[in-house]
């Protein structure tokens, strides 16, 4: 028995780092004042970025038409897909033996970095040397809603906390008159698949969820006072409601009650600041022109300009969704030859303008920009129901997709990872969604292994239980 005891002692001593990490994790819990749950909090480690602007391209843009240059695929255009790619695979819509589909648009090398890009993004291309293109993203979900949930909450099922709510939980809000996490939506055609849980707080207190704002009209519905109610009267109503809520909290002690008080108070303060932040008519004409923004419309261009205004006002996590990239080839707006062109047209100039604008204001240095969908698209042409489709499209493809990052702490002007000659599988430097999350948290000053929230007896983490890593190769 003494021998066995010594064995256990040795194995415990063999892992001093594990013990030390556990100890240091416990040393810095996230502690917010319950009455001010959004008060700013410094991250545990020196951050490289202080805010994130996440441009989620809903529906998933085709990497093969934008960033992943595959001349070999074009050579085999129209040929049957080799059996090795089909054996044991299940697709969302493809059946039987589909044909390979060559890249629809010409590619060229751009910028000093010589990064490959297609001719569909002529504005963004001018910023290519500020971007890091990742062509080796992978996911394990091939339907939109679960894949979007995985990208935004780290889990394909409902109930988990979104990336933005983790950040708001960890850092609070720099500006006490605005939410720390703001979401805006535009679309070329279809709308959200997974809906509001994409910016929900899951198991985190609900005060950390994303607040959806509209880019036209009132930014937040029902934020303005009703007709005939003055700000003073509104204050009196709030005081009365707060008093009742405080009594309820004293009686039952539910932290959600405190969250509710804080949210009412923030909406009151937001009445002044949110309207100002969202009001792009305050921008000079040349700025509006740079984005292609038109006040009064709901557009990705307007949202990009608002995103810059929010970044300047201390909002930590700004998320823009643009739907319409689901290029199956079924209706016309889902064709690679029509719908994708429309989406590029709606987003190319404003995305480039946002990067340029942030750079000019010195804000790109401490902002992380993430651009990407929820999965990739197949190198094969979709043949839904074994039929030839009216428009040209590609099916969902979890094995490989492209995203790009820009901003603080990111090595710019590089392409990371690669797929095989047909663009089917990742062959170099695969990056899992959880690796992207670990990297994002690292840039914000968190260790993804210790940034956790106790729920249902588990220390819940954004990166889940599978091994994740910070993608050190793309760090500046």
């Amino acid at each position, binding site marked *: 028995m003494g021998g066995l005891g010594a064995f256990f002692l040795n194995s415990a001593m063999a892992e001093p780092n594990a013990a030390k990490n556990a100890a240091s994790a416990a040393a810095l819990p996230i502690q917010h004042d319950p009455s001010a749950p959004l008060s700013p909090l410094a991250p545990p480690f*020196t951050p490289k970025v202080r805010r994130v602007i996440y441009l989620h391209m809903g529906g998933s843009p085709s990497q093969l038409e934008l960033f992943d240059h595959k001349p070999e695929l074009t050579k085999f255009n129209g040929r049957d897909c080799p059996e090795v790619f089909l054996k044991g695979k299940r697709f969302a819509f493809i059946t039987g033996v589909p044909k390979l589909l060559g890249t629809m648009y010409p590619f060229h090398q751009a910028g000093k970095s010589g990064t490959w890009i297609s001719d569909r993004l002529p504005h963004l291309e001018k910023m290519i040397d500020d971007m890091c293109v990742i062509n080796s993203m992978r996911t394990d979900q091939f339907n939109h809603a679960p894949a979007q949930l995985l990208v935004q909450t780290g889990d394909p099922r409902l109930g988990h906390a979104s990336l933005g709510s983790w950040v708001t939980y960890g850092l609070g809000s720099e500006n006490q008159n605005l939410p720390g996490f703001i979401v805006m939506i535009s679309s070329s055609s279809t709308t959200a698949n997974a809906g509001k849980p994409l910016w929900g707080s899951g198991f985190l207190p609900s005060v950390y969820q994303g607040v959806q704002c509209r880019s036209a009209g009132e930014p937040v519905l029902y934020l303005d006072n009703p007709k005939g109610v003055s700000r003073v009267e509104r204050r009196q109503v709030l005081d009365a409601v707060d008093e009742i809520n405080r009594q309820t909290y004293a009686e039952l002690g539910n932290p959600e009650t405190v969250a509710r008080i804080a949210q009412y108070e923030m909406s009151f303060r937001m009445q002044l600041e949110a309207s100002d932040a969202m009001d792009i008519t305050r921008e000079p004409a040349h700025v509006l022109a740079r984005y292609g923004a038109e006040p009064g419309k709901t557009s990705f261009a307007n949202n990009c300009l608002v995103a810059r205004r929010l970044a300047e006002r201390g909002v930590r996590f700004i998320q823009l969704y643009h739907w319409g990239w689901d290029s199956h080839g079924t209706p016309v707006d889902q064709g690679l030859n029509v719908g994708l062109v429309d989406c590029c047209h709606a987003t190319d100039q404003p995305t480039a303008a946002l990067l340029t604008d942030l750079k000019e204001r010195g804000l790109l240095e401490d902002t992380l920009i993430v651009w990407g969908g929820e999965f990739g698209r197949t190198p094969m042409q979709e043949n839904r129901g074994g039929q030839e489709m009216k428009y040209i499209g590609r099916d969902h493809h979890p094995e490989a997709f492209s995203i790009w990052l820009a901003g603080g702490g990111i090595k710019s002007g590089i392409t990371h990872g690669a797929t095989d000659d047909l663009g089917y599988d990742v062959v170099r430097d695969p990056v899992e969604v959880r690796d992207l999350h670990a990297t994002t948290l690292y840039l914000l000053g968190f260790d993804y292994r210790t940034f956790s929230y106790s729920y249902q007896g588990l220390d819940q983490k954004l990166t889940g239980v599978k091994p994740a890593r910070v993608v050190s190769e793309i760090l500046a």
Partner: protein
Amino acid sequence: MASEPHASGYLSAPLYLLCVALVTGVAIATAMALRPAFAHKMLEMTGLEAMPQAVPNSFYAARVAPLFAQHCISCHGETRQKAELWLDSYAFVLRGGRHGAVIHPRDPKTSELMTRITLPAGDDKAMPPEGKTPLSPDDVTVIRLWIAAGASPTMPAAAIKGVPQLVAEVTFPDLDPAGTRRRRAPLANVMQQLSARYPGVAAYESRNSADLELNAALRGATFTDTDLKAFLPLHDHIVHMDLSGTAITDASAQALAQMTALQTLRLTNTKTGDATISALAALKSLKFLTVTGTHATGPALAPLSKRGVTIHGDGDAD
């Protein structure tokens, strides 16, 4: 005598033990003959054969063994030994498996292991088999160069040229709450006063640091030259400063010159100009400067730019 018949009908104890030893011996010998890797393990355990050992800082230990550990030993290691091949120690890697050696030092071309890891995905003989993560082209290069250089257990990690760089994993610094408290102590009084007067303007960069960020941009035009002066007691701790859209002017030049720890300074849309820029020469740590929408001019910015400071905007105030 009740015990008498027993003595004649059963083996005596010494003979019994001999038989057990004989059977065990035959079993071990058979196993050793059929499973070479097992034979070596037995010989090594009994001290009859010396195992070549890899040196801790060798190329093998630093670059090759981790690849085997990551991609191979779940099938060729302690728990399973498919094809009698063990890839969990240098000695066994060189010994090979049921079909003989898998590595021929200095000759990657004839080395079975090289052949297997370079077969196209989908080939029945490709390793790791379908469904497992393949070795990256860089991983294959590492193994090839090691075999070509003699598959040595001792050759130092730096001795082989043209090897793909090892990816450095990110590490997090140790959290040091006591040290942080100590380094923040001298600032505590000033921070308390300033936080009361200017809530949220100055904040620690991280919970593990005594470095400060000063963000006056949220205060806009209400933040003046006088207000900036109030932060001078923190001059050697402020590393990032955002004065965008504030009312500061060239009258703050001298105050800024004393902010010796500054790495980032944003003056976007302020009424500052070349007098401020000239004062910044004193800031040796400055890395990023934004002058968009100020009166700063190219000639004043040139020395900073030459020094390697990244400058955004060229003072195009209109």
